[in-house]
């Protein structure tokens, strides 16, 4: 949780993913201008200090030895997946990322040192696969159908995309972890603002909190109908 400004405008902190670390010290944050807060952020100069609270919540669970990780990003959702990719070996993963148009492609490898091979999809077909990244995912899974037991999907992006990825994974019975977005206030599991509806469990709680229980959840526990 980042405080973009001292003072009251905007009042609340903004949640961001850690997209990389250097020597366990500097956390790189990647952001896109979504509104007022991120716009202010974009005006910050190198060297300015901001108040950060974190890391918070639960991250991705790394794949097992023989599992192949399929990373599916939508837009700025690439940020946490890039961080995940840094922890994986190249031959252990398949990274695909969707953007609306070629001009908006985000290449985080330019920020950190390592270069990672990412398959691109653009909605308008201006670069890479033409269509949504979920199409690219389908294509990949079709080709690698016999591997399904050893595949695990990691996804981050807009809710509609996560919903689609989740349903693809469910159909094909592939385990899937999604990193969810939500408006947040406290970031600590205290305000219950960032709730996400899950299928009722034994303990009857119907909501989980993106800030504390998430942002990463097993896709199958989320009640996608409520999204």
């Amino acid at each position, binding site marked *: 949780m980042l*405080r973009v400004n001292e003072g*009251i*405008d*905007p*009042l*609340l*902190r903004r949640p961001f993913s850690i997209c990389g670390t250097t020597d366990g010290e500097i956390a790189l944050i990647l952001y896109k201008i979504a509104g007022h807060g991120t716009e202010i952020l974009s005006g910050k100069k190198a060297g300015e200090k901001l*108040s950060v*609270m974190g890391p918070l919540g639960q991250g991705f669970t790394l794949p097992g030895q023989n599992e192949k990780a399929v990373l599916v990003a939508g837009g700025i959702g690439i940020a946490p997946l890039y961080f995940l990719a840094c922890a994986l070996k190249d031959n252990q993963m398949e990274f695909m990322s969707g953007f609306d148009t070629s001009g908006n492609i985000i290449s985080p490898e330019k920020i950190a040192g390592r270069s990672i091979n990412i398959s691109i999809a653009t909605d308008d077909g201006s670069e890479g696969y033409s269509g949504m990244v979920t199409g690219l995912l389908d294509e990949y899974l079709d080709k690698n159908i016999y591997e399904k037991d050893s595949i695990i999907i990691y996804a981050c992006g807009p809710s509609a995309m996560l919903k689609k990825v989740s349903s693809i994974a469910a159909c094909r019975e592939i385990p899937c972890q999604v990193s969810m977005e*939500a*408006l*947040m*206030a*406290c*970031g*600590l*599991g*205290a*305000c*219950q*603002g*960032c*709730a*996400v*509806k899950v299928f009722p469990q034994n303990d*009857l*709680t*119907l*909501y989980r909190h993106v800030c*504390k229980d998430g942002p990463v959840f097993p896709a199958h526990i989320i009640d996608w109908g*409520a999204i």
Partner: protein
Amino acid sequence: MNRSPDLRVTLGPLEMKNPVMTASGTFGYGCEFESLVDLNLLGGIVVKGLSLKPMAGNPVPRIAETPAGMLNAIGLANIGVNEFIEKKLPWLRGIDTSVIVNIYGHSTDEYEDLAKAFKGVEGVAALEVNISCPNVEMGGMVFGKDPALSARVTERVVKNTDKPVIVKLTPNVTDIGALARAVEESGADIISLINTLTGMAIDIERRRPKLANVSGGLSGPAIKPVALYQVWQAVNSVKIPVIGIGGIIDYRDALEFLIAGAKAVQVGTANFVNPRATMDIIEGLKGYCIEKGIDDINRIIGSLNI
């Protein structure tokens, strides 16, 4: 004078080491802030509002940011009184602060049952009765908007508890003084105010309310002037102590409420912006007292010159 000033305050039957508490719903059950705040320094912790049974809360989105404030329609999501007593309270007993339990019911009977649930339970310094929720008996009308209903709830709680009773008032009323008096006459030991102002926000792209619940409660710096006015009105309407709440983010804000006559304050939304807000405020109050040569915070309380 450089000695540490005396920050202790006495609110009727409730004694606190300093006048700074957390506001209900903004500090969870305390444990959420453990790694960031030295809870032992706080005057008090008011936990999230508890109902008889666990509640899941409202559909999302539940929050929206507004100019210098936020709207929330959490829908009083909570773990219920039993789980609180079993799982949260034992841990809270280990903290050297006044733990205050915020309760709300949907009928006068539920309020009575909640009071009874804490009878004899140790480690609870006081009950704070949230009367700003819809009354099922009266078809959804909010208890706290009507002096007679507020009085009835207060009476039932007071009769069924062995703890000091704080009644928390809603600001969405024509005459806060009348409400404060009604609650005082029915036996409340302390009054706290304000709860959130009812508000709304609309997403102009989708032409939909920003909250799934349509309306919600406005909190944060935006409401401070309204809160301060109502606290001052309450202080002038009753003899029992008053706790000031609303838009406090730093020690200067807290001082405004103390000067207006509040015996203590609660800090809500500020905990989201700066999780250490309560600690910073306590330090700030000390600094102010030292700077002004004031050895006892009680000399500030109610010192407004008109």
